[in-house]
């Protein structure tokens, strides 16, 4: 789109593109360099100037990663926890969001304010008692310890409530009630199908957060066979400090799945974030 009076190649536009290109380069370069180091031989890494082009040793480095950590088990653990939590968050948060947006019950406003207030509380505050509860339940070194506390969250409830009250007309629900639908049928048949965009964004945010979570899994998953990929990466980094080529090959392989998931849904996700957040 060209506006009248704006030149195509004005200095302002050139500076704009220059800035954006530098920004894009700085954003993407670490991903590229991770692969460069991960695919070079360790001796090529330990030189000055550092390697700038991909090498031929990626498979060799990957092999070393598999020897040092149970890479695929860790990825599986991450997939299981992230998927379970995402499905559960989507279900419980949309259900609660529906209740807050469309059902009338006593104390509703106060309960909603309370939920929003809990978003301010840092997660570390209760970490010691949470650890004790989890250990009483026998969940240390069990994925339950990561999954159960994260099954529903305040942000999700807030997000779904905002979206549902803005997009679902009350008349639609009233019409459903005339036809004898119960509240749950309305939720399942009317609300759920119409809030897909909000669900997609919430789902992706949740999935990424859980996939990248570090402190809590570090505390409760001690046994190597139960490590999520982030904790496994940390072990790799801590134990073999010198072998940067291997460490970054592992980091690259661990980043790849989330990168693919993100690029697959990115369009929907960015649109959801830019359009859905202000309602």
């Amino acid at each position, binding site marked *: 789109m060209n506006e009248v009076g704006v030149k195509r190649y004005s200095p302002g536009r050139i500076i704009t593109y220059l*800035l954006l290109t530098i920004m894009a380069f700085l954003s993407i370069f670490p*991903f590229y360099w991770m692969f460069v180091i991960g695919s070079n031989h360790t001796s090529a890494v330990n030189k000055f100037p550092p390697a700038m082009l991909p090498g031929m040793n990626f498979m060799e480095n990957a092999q070393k990663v598999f020897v040092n950590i149970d890479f695929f088990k860790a990825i599986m653990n991450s997939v299981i926890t992230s998927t379970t939590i995402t499905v559960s968050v989507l279900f419980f948060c949309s259900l609660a969001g529906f209740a807050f947006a469309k059902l009338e019950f006593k104390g509703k406003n106060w309960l909603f304010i309370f939920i929003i207030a809990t978003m*301010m509380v*840092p997660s570390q505050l*209760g970490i010691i008692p949470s650890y004790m509860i989890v250990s009483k339940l026998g969940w240390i070194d069990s994925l339950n310890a990561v999954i159960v*506390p994260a099954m*529903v969250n305040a942000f999700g409830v807030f997000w779904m409530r905002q979206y549902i009250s803005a997009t679902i007309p009350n008349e639609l629900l009233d019409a459903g009630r005339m036809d004898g639908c119960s509240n749950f049928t309305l939720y399942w048949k009317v609300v759920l199908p119409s809030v897909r965009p909000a669900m997609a964004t919430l789902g992706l945010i949740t999935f990424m957060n859980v996939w990248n979570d*570090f402190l809590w899994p570090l505390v409760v998953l001690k046994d190597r066979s139960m490590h999520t990929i982030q904790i496994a990466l940390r072990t790799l980094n801590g134990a073999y400090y010198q072998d940067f080529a291997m460490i970054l090959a592992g*980091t690259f392989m661990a980043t790849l799945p989330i990168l693919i998931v993100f690029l697959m849904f990115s369009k929907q996700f*960015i649109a959801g974030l830019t359009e859905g957040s202000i309602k």
Partner: protein
Amino acid sequence: MKQSTKDHISGYLYISPFFIIFGVFGLFPIIFTAYISFHKWNILGTKEFVGFNNYQLLFTDPLFWKALGNTFSIWFISTLPQLFLALIFAFILNSALLKGKEFFRLAVFLPNITSVVAVAIIFGAIFGEHYGILNYLLSFIGVEPINWKASYLGTHIAISAMVMWRWTGYNTIIYLSALQSIPKDLYEAATIDGANKMQQFFYITIPMIRPMVIFTVILSTIGGMQIFAEPLMFSGNGGGALDQGLTMTLYLYEEAFVRNSFGYSSAIAWVLFLIIVLFSLVNLYVTNRIKSAE
């Protein structure tokens, strides 16, 4: 059954999962943390009530003050440039004339999906003393290799760089969404009234996105106060030889899960929480003052 009764039953039922989970893993632990903070307790022995001792100890503990200073230093170095850059990028990305907008949006957001652990490892390599890419670039302008890991400032800059790399794009997208929600006719009306671009920026754009600016300031403050994985990965256990990477959350973690002083760690947790609340309120006050000054 009346619809109102049905609504009450369903309503409470549908929101109950949140309250059950939050009750067990949120509210109860917070209260219990306060209780533990008044005791001397390592997980094996019995709890011994010590009143405010842990808190008194905290205020005379040089390590705690160091952790506090480090946390604030890292927060300051990372937050200001990050939000400023985000604002600039959001303005640029919002300009209608731009080609390839989708690509740039994606590129700016990409770092945010990377895990902190991966970021810390990559930046550990970039900020390496002998073979790091940054020292290589600096050598072109005649700067001797810097041992980033060994000094306070070096460590704080490296950790801040990780935070900035990961979060600038996120804040850009948030600002972008705020910019896009400003109705176009506001600008048109202003143009008709003879307001120039500069006036439009200060009298329309800035006031309209202020809520989002406050939101990001508070969010990055809360995040900054809780910084943990980056210093742990960059400086190692304990935050390095000079404790240059010891942040409040790292200190809390070490006291609880390395040294087993649960009482003391709980006191740190509560002080950390109070600092976050206080700091958020100060932020809110300052950002509101900036509004009324205009």
